[in-house]
Structures are given as structure tokens and as C-alpha cells.
């Protein structure tokens, strides 16, 4: 065996050793549970919780409309809840984007200490507990809360507005929690945007709008897509925000999953719901990765 082979072998052994802890953790705490969930989602729910080891595809059937006729009925409410979750997640993505995109340009143009301070402010909310932050919104939005009190005493409204326990409240909560996740990837992208390209575009006769559409937007698209996915995934599966700010009126798939596992003890059904969410997310990520690979082939990252 030549020495080059030995070196290669040693390198490979080092690599395996370095990757081992992470691989073990990932498989024990993620892949194996995922496998269990997949199996469970095709099993019959037991009468008192647990599972019966019978082939039972109707957990999915209940959700997407092909039920076991005599026992379970197709309930369009699940699809409705899923669609509402999609809608809330999409709105969250759009709102966090609209907030983050201009802010990222603004911060990227700051200098030194000012810039670091701005970045610190953006991560500041992480320092407080999630529940505390959501509870604060409950206090702000409720009929006797801050906004209604101010608006009423200003004489702008006669009766308190319904700000709480609707999609609006849930979206506000989501946007509040998830904006940093949109901001940071966009900022990382905007930060390295080469302004000489903007100049070149102007120089070649493009007005500001054309420059934005033809140069700035395509060059920051990877950051926007990255941020959108990182916001979309937790928004779609979130159950804390809707249970606080949506009350009993706004149900998201996350709440449904939580209830199936913890209250109805219908694990197969919960597993089916969770996997459906995961499937929709995976489809989105694959689309993104494809686009990114194409962009990278062109030297844009």
C-alpha cells in the first residue's frame, strides 16, 4: 500500500470520528423517532390510546378525504385548519419580509458600533422568555388592553376593537417572534451586495425601479428565499402562538397535533398530521435547494 493511500485512510478515519457525535445524535433523536412516527401514522389508534398493529391508512384519509366509511368520517375541518395554517404562515412570511428587507439595507449601510448595536437590538427579544413575550401581546391586544384604551381615550373608536383571538392576532404574534429569522439571512445577503453593480446599472441607463427589479432583487433573492423558509417552517407548525393569541377561535395544525398526542391520545392521527406538514415543508425546501444550486452555478450565493 502506498503512503498516499495511508494518508487518505487516516484522513477518512479523522472525518468519521469528527462526524460521529453529530451523526449519532441526529439518528437517535431525530431519524429513529421520525421512523417511529412514520410507522405509527399507518397504524390503527387503540381505543384507550396506544396503537393496534394493523395496517390503517385512514389517519391520512380523515385529513385529505378518503375515510373508512363505516367508522371514521372525512372531516373537512382538518383540511380547513391546514389551509388556514398555510395562510397564516404565508402571511407571516410576507409581513416579516416587508419589515426585514428595508431594515436590512438600512442596517447594512450603518457604520461600526452603530451597526453592531442595531444587530444587537434585533436579537434582543431572544433574551426574554417566549411565553412572556406572547403574553405581553395578550395584554396589549385585549379589549381592555393598551391599544383599545389609547384609541378609546383618543376618541377614535367608541367600542373596543376585536383585536384578540383571530388570525390577525396570531399573525402579529408570529411576525413578532419570527422577524429576526427573516432579517438575518436577508441581512447577510444584503451586506455583501456589491454596490458597484447598482452603479453599473444606473450607468447603463436603468432608472431606480429597473435597477431594483433587474439587479438588487435577483442578487438578494437567495437571502429572501432562505429567510422565507426559516420563517415558514416554524410558523406552519407553531402551536404556542395560536393557543395564546388565537384562543379557541383560531386553530392551527400545530394545535391539532398537540391535542391528538396529549389530549385525545390518538398518536397515529397526530403522527399523520405531523408528517403531512413535514411533507409540504420538504417540497418547499427541495424547490429552494434546486434554485440555489442553479444560482450557485452562476456564481451567486
Amino acid at each position: 500500500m502506498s503512503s498516499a493511500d495511508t494518508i487518505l485512510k487516516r484522513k477518512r478515519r479523522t472525518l468519521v470520528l469528527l462526524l460521529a457525535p453529530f451523526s449519532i445524535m441526529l439518528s437517535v433523536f431525530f431519524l429513529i423517532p421520525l421512523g417511529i412516527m412514520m410507522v405509527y401514522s399507518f397504524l390503527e389508534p387503540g381505543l384507550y390510546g396506544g396503537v393496534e398493529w394493523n395496517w390503517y391508512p385512514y389517519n391520512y384519509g380523515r385529513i385529505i378525504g378518503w375515510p373508512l366509511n363505516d367508522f371514521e368520517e372525512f372531516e373537512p375541518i382538518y383540511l380547513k385548519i391546514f389551509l388556514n395554517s398555510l395562510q397564516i404562515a404565508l402571511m407571516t412570511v410576507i409581513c416579516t419580509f416587508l419589515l426585514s428587507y428595508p431594515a436590512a439595507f438600512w442596517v447594512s449601510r450603518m457604520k461600526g458600533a452603530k451597526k453592531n448595536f442595531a444587530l444587537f437590538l434585533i436579537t434582543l427579544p431572544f433574551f426574554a422568555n417566549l411565553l412572556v413575550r406572547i403574553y405581553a401581546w395578550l395584554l396589549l391586544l385585549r379589549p381592555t388592553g393598551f391599544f383599545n384604551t389609547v384609541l378609546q381615550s383618543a376618541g377614535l373608536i367608541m367600542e373596543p376593537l376585536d383585536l384578540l383571538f383571530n388570525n390577525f392576532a396570531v399573525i402579529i404574534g408570529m411576525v413578532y417572534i419570527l422577524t429576526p429569522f427573516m432579517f438575518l439571512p436577508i441581512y447577510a445577503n444584503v451586506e455583501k451586495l456589491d454596490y458597484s453593480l447598482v452603479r453599473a446599472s444606473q450607468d447603463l441607463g436603468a432608472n431606480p425601479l429597473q435597477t431594483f427589479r433587474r439587479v438588487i432583487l435577483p442578487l438578494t433573492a437567495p437571502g429572501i428565499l432562505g429567510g422565507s423558509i426559516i420563517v415558514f417552517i416554524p410558523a406552519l407548525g407553531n402551536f404556542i402562538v395560536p393557543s395564546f393569541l388565537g384562543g379557541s377561535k383560531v386553530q392551527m395544525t400545530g394545535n391539532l397535533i398537540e391535542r391528538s398526542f396529549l389530549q385525545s391520545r390518538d398518536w397515529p392521527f397526530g403522527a399523520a398530521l405531523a408528517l403531512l406538514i413535514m411533507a409540504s415543508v420538504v417540497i418547499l425546501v427541495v424547490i429552494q435547494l434546486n434554485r440555489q444550486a442553479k444560482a450557485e452555478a452562476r456564481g451567486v450565493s
Partner: protein
Amino acid sequence: MNFLNITSARKAYRTPEGGFIHALDDVSLNVRNNEFLTLLGPSGCGKTTLLKCIAGFEDIDSGNISLEDQSLKGVPAHRRPFNTVFQNYALFPHLNISDNVGYGLDVARVPKKERADRVEEAMELVGLKGFGKREPNQLSGGQQQRVALARSLVLKPRVLLLDEPLSALDRKMRENMQIELKNLQNSVGITFVFVTHDQEEALAMSDRIAVVANGKVQQLATPTEIYDEPANAFVANFVGTSNIFTGKVVEQNGKNLKIETANERQVLATSDHFNLGDQVQVILRPEHMKLSPDGNEISECCIEGTVEASIFVGSEMHLHVNVGKGRTAIVHHRHNRGDEGERIEVGTDVKLYYSPNAAHLIELVED
């Protein structure tokens, strides 16, 4: 009618310390139609600022920039009939080469057929035919440079502004591109305003050179005038190497002057502009001084000194000669093959001969 005219342009930047830097300090410049004009100066002299002001990326504080007597004040960069070739090329990484070249035509909504023809024509002009489908990062620096040129030329600008476009290329490539750029300018008949800090580049390519320093135009003239008759000591030192002796005219015989220099040497020169008793600076180029008289020089026309250092650079031997009171003169002594035997040792006493016609006189300014 004036073509591109800059009158009394001023531009100041605030420094972080609260002071001001006068990037442009009363600059007036008249660029002629179809000429290759170079703005030459050290970095930070204001030449790039001037280019940006012409392009419309920056506004001048006062003064005026006009094209064919139409003021460009308030005209944004994208409406000016000028295009820029940037130092780092600034090619759009998300577009392929033909879309980069066609960018200006696309934003101007030029019909498809015409766009395709003009892109093709421009790519051929810069020698990149058939590269249209490639991506910018697949091209070498020189090729990217050509794309940047094609992208600007395809729009047929009135003036092409070039911001140190060759500085990122290696030496051989740079020399090739100099010739190509000059030929290109001749064939397309577009006015080029070229910014560089490289004096050889400026001398090689330009119809006229504006030497810029401290926000002011020091001299605007043809390359030979700039080299042979520098307007002041800065130009003399920045363009080529100069030996400058300060002194006083002590003898006048018509055009023939004798100057007594501060280091107690006497220099002969011919000039119409100076009289007995004038304080002057004498500029002698290193290649105009020789170690032995060859007929044109008269024997008394020489400066004595001692060799302090001799540096071999290939085609020449550069001698540093102490000519009294610590003043060093630099002499470029032509090197012939097999000269090794007559290599001049440090410490040798030499006489430096020159022709009085080679000495250029300028007024002594106190600064």
C-alpha cells in the same frame, strides 16, 4: 461649440475628524470631441471624483459640467449619454455575457432583433464572439474587461469614462489592452476619458493628459509636452524621473543662460522666458545625461559628482551620483551587451554631460 466642458468645479468631502478634503478645487477642463483624454494623478488626487461627477454618481458643490453647452446639472446618471467602465468591471453575476452586454438595451426597451444584432456587433468589436452563453465568473480578468467595454460601447455613448480599467490586469495583459483600447477608440470614434495613476499608461495611450494633484489640474497637454516641458516640479517628478536643481540665473547671453545652483554647480540652459537674476528650477531627465561627451554637448556643459549607487535594470544602468551638498542626480546609462568590464564602481568620480537644450527651466515657486 464646446464638447464636454467642466468649469470651476469644486467638491469637498467631510473627514471623520470634522475637517474638509477638497477633492476638486476649482477644476476647469475642456474635453474635445473624439479625443482620448487621460486624467493622471496619484491616488486620492481627485481624478476618480471628477470622473464620478461627470458620470453623475456625485454632484459637484459648485461650478458647472456641460455637454455641447447644455448643463448637466440635476441630470441623473441614468439619463446622461455617458457610460463607465469600472475598475472592478462590475459585471452582473446573475446574467450571462450576452445579457450583461444587452443590459443597457434591455432597460431602454430596444426591440429584440435590433438588440441581438447590436450585442453581436459589440461582442465582435471586443473579440468575444461566441462567448454569449458563458457566465462572468468563467472568464479571465482580461475577458471580463472586454465584456465591460462591450456593455458600455453597445449603447454608443457620447463619452466613455474608464476608471483605472487596466489596474487589475497583469503587466503583459495590460500592455496588450493599452494598444487594443487605443485602436478601439480610433475605430469607434467615441471620446474616452481615462483615469489612471500609471504614467507610462497615460503617455502611451493619450491624445492629451491632464495631470491632477491636490484637486487641481496641474497641466493639460499632449504626452510629449507633459514629458518635455512639465509645468511644475510636481509634474516633472510624477511623469518620469527628473533631476531638479534650484538656482539663480547668473549669466545671460541671448537665449543662453548660466544658472548657479544651490549645491554650487553651474548648469547651462537655453530659454526665452527667464532673465538675469531670476530664481529658477532646472529639470534634467536622467536619460539626457551622459558619462562622456558625444559631440552635441560642449565640454563645459557638465556636472561633476561621485557615484553613490549603481543599479542594473536590464536595458540601462541607473547611477545615483552625488553632485554636491548631498544632492543626488539620477543618470540612466545605456547598457550594451558585454559592458560588464566597464561597470562603474561606487565611489568613481564622473562628469555628467548634457545638452543645454535638454535642460527645461521652470519658475521657482515657494511652497
